[in-house]
């Protein structure tokens, strides 16, 4: 455990920038997002859930896969320094683990390593994740449903707690340990600090709403696939992509070619199961032409299909989708509805 006084925070970030490209929550116009910072002055440590999730650091909304001319093709050059992400919350660090199952591990593929995504791996594998504990969870936070929590450390390299006057660092992964050992400012563990952290944790947890037991969610979703409940759930959804675009775990993408004359590029773009053209086929046929089918896809992907493939829910309970939905289609209510649903027979 090491401690850095708030007055030394600027210096700490400056040092970090020597070896890393540092990303942190910033206020970007009227919204908040994780961006590469110039100096520590850009950092907003107050914001709990940035409007745009940090998944875009590793999996940007649009990413050029390669460019081509008549002479050949090339993959755009990446950043040289590895990434350090300051100020991620537990619901976001956990989302990276989930996304890594898709892009990084690809364990289900026929041949090991076959479809590992180089664009993701290059950024994610060497990055250093600082998880900042949430001292004041929001009423939309429900990470506790998924066994996360404001002081949970899963998915981080270094766990950080902000106290009244300092930041207290604790190594979680080997990468994190190495980083902290290399920092010269090591300090001994003090009972006083541990007590402070315990107190903050207790207060934070008291802000969270009651935990819902979702252990039967997977089996329940399996039972109801063709039940009329989906019409009821989906009725008010207008199929914008807001929920999926702010979600830290949604990862569907589309590939688009943009070319002119003898030059062009292939771009990977976020897609959304909410969009009408999501699964429209070249023939014009669309197996999910109805809004209800697409809402079901979103919910099933999160709480059933992903579980089937990777033994985890594709949701960390960050609550972003709850906040942005223009029709107040609250995913927590959807989950409760599913859990309480009684089949007609």
């Amino acid at each position: 455990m090491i401690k850095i006084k708030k007055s030394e925070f600027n210096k700490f970030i400056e040092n970090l920038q020597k070896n890393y490209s540092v990303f942190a929550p910033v206020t970007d116009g009227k919204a908040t997002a994780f961006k590469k910072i110039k100096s520590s002055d850009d950092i907003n440590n107050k914001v709990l859930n940035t409007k745009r999730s940090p998944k875009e650091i590793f999996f940007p909304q649009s990413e050029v896969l390669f460019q081509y001319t008549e002479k050949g093709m090339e993959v755009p050059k990446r950043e040289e320094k590895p990434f350090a992400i300051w100020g991620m919350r537990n619901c976001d660090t956990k989302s990276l683990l989930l996304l890594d199952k898709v892009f990084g591990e690809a364990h289900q593929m026929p041949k090991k390593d076959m479809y590992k995504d180089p664009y993701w791996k290059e950024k994610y594998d060497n990055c250093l994740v600082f998880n900042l504990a949430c001292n004041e969870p929001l009423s939309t936070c429900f990470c506790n449903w998924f066994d996360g929590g404001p002081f949970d450390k899963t998915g981080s390299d270094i766990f950080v707690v902000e106290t009244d006057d300092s930041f207290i660092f604790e190594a979680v992964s080997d990468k994190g340990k190495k980083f902290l050992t290399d920092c010269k400012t090591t300090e001994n563990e003090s009972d006083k600090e541990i007590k402070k952290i315990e107190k903050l944790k207790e207060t934070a947890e008291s802000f969270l709403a009651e935990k819902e037991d979702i252990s039967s969610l997977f089996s329940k979703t399996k039972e109801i696939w063709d039940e009329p409940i989906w019409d009821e759930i989906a009725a008010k959804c207008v199929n914008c992509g807001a929920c999926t675009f702010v979600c830290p775990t949604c990862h569907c993408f589309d590939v688009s070619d943009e070319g002119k004359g003898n030059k062009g590029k292939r771009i990977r773009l976020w897609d959304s199961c909410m969009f009408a053209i999501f699964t429209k086929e070249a023939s014009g046929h669309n197996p999910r032409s109805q809004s209800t089918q697409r809402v079901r896809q979103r919910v099933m992907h999160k709480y059933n299909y992903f579980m089937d493939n990777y033994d985890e829910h594709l949701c960390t309970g960050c609550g972003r989708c709850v906040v942005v939905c223009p029709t107040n289609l609250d995913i927590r209510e959807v989950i409760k509805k599913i859990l309480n649903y009684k089949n007609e027979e």
Partner: protein
Amino acid sequence: MIQNLRTEVKKLLKDKKVDIVLGWEKGSLPLSSSPLFIHKEEDVDRLIFDETCRNNLTTYLTKDKRKLGKTYDKIGIVVKGCDARSIVLYVVEQQIKRENVIIIGVPCNGVLEKKKILQKTENKEILESKIDGNNIHLKGRDFDLKFPLKDVLCDSCLTCRYPDAPVHNIFIGKPRKEVDIKDEFKNVIDFEKKSSEERWEYTKDEYARCIRCYACRNVCPACYCNECFVDQNDPQWIGKTPEVTDSIIFHLIRNLHVAGRCVDCGACVSACPVDLDLRIMNKKVEKEVKERFDYTAGLDIDEKPAMVSYCENEKQDFIMG
């Protein structure tokens, strides 16, 4: 008011005058509401109407394959002034038949803009809220704020001329006719005074935030195309990236598509997750249509819409020749 509304709605359902009624119910977040689809009399008690009833529900009449307007023969719909005007738009554009909708007008004093509230509370959690008369009282863990309601009403509401459904079957209470508003286009006029560099700087920064989620389009009553131009990929009309140039093209084309049709309900503004200033262009186009064709969308079922009528003495300086 709310009791009268519920009684009327119950009556409509009981007498089988409607198959479904669209209204609002209390939402899951502080100061929020959510669309409510009422099929049965016993659900009527969930119906509310107050400053939180932000959504323009008419969008459900035409949206997606669901198209409630085509699914049901008779639809009851609770509307504010702007919402009622979008029904007029549908009738004029032959998307629904006037006799198929029972328009239930409610007296509107403006609806809340969540983003303005969050600015006031500095994004802090609201634990208690109370609207009393023209004031709003908000309490959180470490704040206790009281301020005039109009500080947090939608911009559209602040310059709304027709708060009470200009066209309706039933009105709860007594509808006001037009409200006298003088600075309806103030935001546009102020903006027009800026230099083109300033305007570009502002516009560029705004649209740079767009994440192309299309919430603005999807909540918009005027955007009901079966296939939007942004969804077409053969040919692909516009770039799909969130780069500012691509986003601007999306927005400009959408602006033109809703020209003379936008009713300034503000639904797009409220829906945008990244808080873009979409209203400035909406109002600019509305002002142009007003000045060139003396047309305001959604007021008169018998008047031909601006974009399909032609008049010899119209200004035609936009036609290049």
